[in-house]
């Protein structure tokens, strides 16, 4: 089966990032719509060229990358064949589906006997499971150990050219956003960013991809004029049922969504993505296999691909920076009151604080615009480049609801939005909307509570 849809996923030490899982879920819809296969590429998920039997490296050790050993040993359990791709030479044509793969058997002695390996198996199996049973290619290489757009493009462009999909789906993250456009140029591909849904034109079956513009108040539909098309996919695209006219979704599609939804809930609270997928799973848990619904269509296959060495990178990663100011801890808050540009001036933050003060367990956060104006510290920023939160109640005050902010709060259980503009995009995700001027509304709320308190006395 040819793979018409390729996902380039991102891995954290614990496995695929939630954004990647959702991108896979979206890609599965696309694959279902085209009736063809889905492949998942996972660059940089382990540092060594695979597969080697390292002795004592564990997933937790470096806080970084999954070991080749772990992946390889699990692959034995999940898939019955492990293929090793040779690194592409300058001539890239020897890599097509049928030829150029050296099939190897796993080296002897790398058994599943030690608890160490079992533990890794557990984690890596889960990691592979989240690819939804799709054919998975794990890409290793030193140049991928730390992210740089240059290294990812060097590795992915030739590989994607050989895989020759029609759709290339990347999570719309700070990475996908970073290297996706360059990758599109290298592939001479169409490019559509921040996609939150798709549908097919009834007349000619053409794919139309939906995205937001103008602070989320407007939407546009974009149509690729050539193949392949590189899509950077927003998390909501995975669940955007209304947007997708493809009605005969396969049962496993629902399952994939359920998985994605499960991730969302796991992602509540603060901290970097994936921290909740803890590494402390039971040590002797059996290797998981993909759910039957996934493997029914085709047996899952896992392959390794060694990234070519990058001799003279022009862009050299120097590493992650230690967090200058500790991230604000939103995890214990039941209610988050968030201020947006609509508060108008720093002085008005006092009103936000007073509104938050009404609730027993409340925290105050803000949108990026508020931080950029110097009204609040960046450590309280909620959104794509700030914290991701999902409290029981989120009160958005004067926040327009542009995509980057929604990315950080849309999974909150209950969202109340206060905004003067009834067309503000925040109302698209809100459960309760109040069209009012904040500077009048909050005093009215405070007055009301005081009056009630007086009456109670």
């Amino acid at each position: 089966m040819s793979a018409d849809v390729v996902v380039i996923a991102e891995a954290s030490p614990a496995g695929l990032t939630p954004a990647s899982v959702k991108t896979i879920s979206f890609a599965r819809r696309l694959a279902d719509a085209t009736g063809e296969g889905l492949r998942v590429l996972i660059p940089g998920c382990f540092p060594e060229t695979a597969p080697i039997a390292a002795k004592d490296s564990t997933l937790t050790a470096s806080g970084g990358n999954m070991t080749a050993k772990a992946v390889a040993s699990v692959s034995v359990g999940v898939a019955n064949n492990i293929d090793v791709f040779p690194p592409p030479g300058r001539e890239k044509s020897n890599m097509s589906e049928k030829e150029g793969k050296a099939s190897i058997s796993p080296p002897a002695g790398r058994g599943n006997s030690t608890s160490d390996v079992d533990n890794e198996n557990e984690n890596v199996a889960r990691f592979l499971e989240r690819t939804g049973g799709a054919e998975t290619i794990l890409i290793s290489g030193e140049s991928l150990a730390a992210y740089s757009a240059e290294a990812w493009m060097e590795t992915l462009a030739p590989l994607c050219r050989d895989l020759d999909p029609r759709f290339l789906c990347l999570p719309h993250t700070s990475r996908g956003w970073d290297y996706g456009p360059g990758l599109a140029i290298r592939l001479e591909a169409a490019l559509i960013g921040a996609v939150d849904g798709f549908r097919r034109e009834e007349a000619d079956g053409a794919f139309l991809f939906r995205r937001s513009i103008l602070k989320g108040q407007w939407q546009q539909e974009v149509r690729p004029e050539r193949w392949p098309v590189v899509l950077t996919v927003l998390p909501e695209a995975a669940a955007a049922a209304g947007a997708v006219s493809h009605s005969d979704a396969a049962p496993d599609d629902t399952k994939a969504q359920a998985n994605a939804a499960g991730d969302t809930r796991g992602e509540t609270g603060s901290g970097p993505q994936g921290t909740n997928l803890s590494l402390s799973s039971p040590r002797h848990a059996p290797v998981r296999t993909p759910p039957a619904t996934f493997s029914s269509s085709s047996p899952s296959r896992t392959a390794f691909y060694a990234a070519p060495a990058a001799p003279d990178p022009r862009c050299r990663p120097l590493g992650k920076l230690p967090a200058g100011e500790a991230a604000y801890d939103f995890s214990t808050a039941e209610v988050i009151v968030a201020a947006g540009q609509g508060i108008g001036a720093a002085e008005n933050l006092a009103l936000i604080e007073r509104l938050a003060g009404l609730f027993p367990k409340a925290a105050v956060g803000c949108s990026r615009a508020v931080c950029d104006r110097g009204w609040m510290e960046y450590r309280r920023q909620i959104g794509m480049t700030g914290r991701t939160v999902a409290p029981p109640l989120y009160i958005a005050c004067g926040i327009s609801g542009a995509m980057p902010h929604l990315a950080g709060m849309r999974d909150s259980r209950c969202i109340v939005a206060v905004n003067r503009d009834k067309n503000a995009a925040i109302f698209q995700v809100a459960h309760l909307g109040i069209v009012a001027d904040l500077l009048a509304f909050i005093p009215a709320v405070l007055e009301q509570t005081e009056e009630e308190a007086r009456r109670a006395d």
Partner: protein
Amino acid sequence: MNILVCIKQILVPEAVSEGPGSLGSNVAGNEDPAAKGGAWNFPEPSFADDCYRMNPYDEHALEEALRIRERFPEAKIDALTVGPDRCRQVLRRALEMGADRAVLLQVASAPRKELVSPHSLEPATAAGGAGLLFSKELVSPSSEDPGRSSWGEPGWPASEALVSPSSGEPVPPHARSDSKPAHPGDTSPPQDLTPYETAAIIAAYLRDKTHDLILAGVMAEDGMAGQTGQLLAELLGLPCATAVISEQLHSPHGPVYVEREEDGGERSAYEIDLPALLTIQSGINRPRYPALSHVLRARAQEIVVVAASGLRPTPRERVVDSRRRESSSECEFLPGPLPEQARQFLGFCRQRGFLNA
């Protein structure tokens, strides 16, 4: 040292927020009466000057260039934009802020009626990527449809009033609230090229020029794509970093040290050889207001205008429709007046146990 700052003139989002339901499509024959809001067959729209401004992220990029020039006074800053004649406005602003030169890559706009359907992609021929329908050339001049625009043209019936974002006063679409004359003959809608088209035009123009550093905003506030910079870098073969939140240049020859912002507010550091392209994230600096002396000087400065319609590439993706997002059916709005809204809000919170009864 030559620095290039790529600037976009954007339509102020607030100016569009009160408009009708559809920004239209650049694909003819796609009229959908249900989608109207009365706006589908709108007359040629015209926006007041103050409905346009420099993309705020580009202001940060320009400010960063100005700060580099303060360190290396021999540096020259070129400000460049692509678009119709009205984009002179943002170049003037760039000169006022302190750019040394300004270049308008002028792409003419044409009345909507001349727009041609681009429908040509047959699923059958397109399948599998084998039969690419378009030239592999990065930049293939196309003179056929100079007026085609990418995400459509915001516009509304002539009777609709615009709200001027600066004054809050209604501005009739064809009248002007300030003394500046309308650009003669320019009744063009906000014409927006796709990021790829923009990048290809700039790349074609830059082919025989040398810049040590190219800066752009991380995204445009209207189109929100955040792609033009990366596309341009790749077309020019330059290394690129996006969402740069800190930059240090110790020598005009580089390398440049940058910190880029990642998800969750994390930062990663990179060292990048020059020439390079950086897209600048807001928060890296606070853009200056033009000093009066610069404003006066800028009046005497020339804006170089280059006819660029011939540099337009064959588009690789096309916007077929832009419209206001339908209001969500899930959101329950609390009716006014204010005290009633406040009372119901508190009731809502109590009912769900967030507030003590």
